[in-house]
């Protein structure tokens, strides 16, 4: 636990030094969403109808954008090599990375969601559902993008490769998250979709850290 806390602290120190890593995705998210009312027209009915898909597509892309550099520096400067050789700290390192990635990309999306609700003309009920889907879905986004980053860290230009690996895995998430929001907008029950999102989250939480650890080992060996 002491070790884990120190590792989280290190990630937070790095995020503090490299602010672009978490500010860029957030700014990207806001920019994309603020362009839609301008491009499609500010008619509230129309925006409200497409809002669920829009918010989630923007969230997917912005999280993907943030993940590319995740392991690059640690790989280049030999930190990962030495972690793999030392073995015991590797799993804690992976979980600390995932947690801090979510804190720095998922949580800000939840925090700016009231602003999104205003931009896209969402009502109170829809905003609530948006927040719940973001809280359940963004950790899955983080887990999967950390996995993508771990698999591609040794590749020179891994960005597109990572997108190709990870985007197909995002698609079920996109369908159920926007499905929940659409159901809520038409006053239908949406707990089913939320339950599926929760299942995704628990499943990913159980398996992805192990897969990431294995991917790091593979890339070093």
């Amino acid at each position, binding site marked *: 636990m*002491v*070790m884990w*806390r*120190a*590792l989280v*602290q*290190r990630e937070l*120190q*790095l995020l503090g*030094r*490299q602010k672009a890593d978490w500010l860029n995705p957030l700014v990207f998210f806001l920019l994309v969403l603020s362009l839609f009312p301008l491009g499609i027209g500010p008619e509230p009915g129309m925006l409200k109808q497409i809002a669920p898909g829009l918010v989630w597509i923007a969230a997917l892309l912005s999280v993907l954008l943030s993940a590319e550099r995740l392991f690059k*520096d*640690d790989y*280049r*400067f*030999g*930190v990962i*090599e*030495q*972690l*793999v*050789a*030392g*073995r*015991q*700290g590797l799993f804690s*390192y992976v979980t600390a990375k995932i947690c801090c990635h979510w804190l720095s990309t998922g949580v800000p999306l939840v925090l700016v969601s009231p602003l999104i609700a205003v931009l896209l003309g969402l009502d109170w009920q829809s905003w609530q559902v948006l927040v719940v889907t973001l809280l359940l879905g963004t950790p899955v986004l983080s887990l999967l993008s950390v996995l993508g980053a771990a698999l591609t860290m040794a590749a020179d230009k891994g960005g597109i490769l990572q997108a190709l690996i990870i985007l197909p895995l995002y698609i079920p998430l996109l369908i159920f998250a926007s499905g929940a929001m659409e159901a809520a907008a038409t006053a239908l029950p949406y707990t089913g979709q939320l339950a599926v999102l929760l299942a995704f989250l628990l499943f990913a939480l159980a398996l992805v850290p192990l897969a990431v650890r294995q991917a790091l080992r593979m890339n*070093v*060996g």
Partner: protein
Amino acid sequence: MSIILAAEALSCVRQDRVLFENLNFQLSAGQVLYIQGKNGAGKSSLLRLLAGLTLPEDGQILFHGKPLFAQPELYAEQLLFIGHQSGIHPQLTALQNLAFWSALTDQQLADPYQLLGSLGLAGLEDIPCFMLSAGQQRRVSLARLWFTNKPVWILDEPFTSLDQQLIARLEQHFLQHLAAGGVIVLTSHQSLSAAYPELKSLELEYRW
């Protein structure tokens, strides 16, 4: 004296080139294995094999008489590996880097300021490592050797970019570690100057 680390008929192939084959050595407590060879002769590859990062093409590595692959966790607990890259994140300060490595190895670092000061880094503890010179970064990386309790040290070119004074200090520290029953495997293009009680040299030839 019991043999801590041994290689039996070890061979290594990289990109269809045989770097070395049928390599044997035995290291007991208190011994240094000093690996020499031209650039590209396979020194770093041998160290990566010994650190358990890669698997040998043929042969095996024994730790306390048992093959490495049968006890990777046990071996890793006893091993301190500093590779060709320093393991120092340039965006973090010397203190933050040390805190990271001490947390990972469960070693309490009583007084990091004193340690960094003794390595000639007084006053530089709180600036990001990318602002330090290459030799100073190397010192931050090697500072780990002063608060570890692992018996097996595998060091890839530890003397690179260090000045004479610090090299002497480092070799003194090596002697202490050996006297306490540790073993050291290291590569270097520089000759070792301290009087090691038991020095084993291994020369790797560059092969086509």
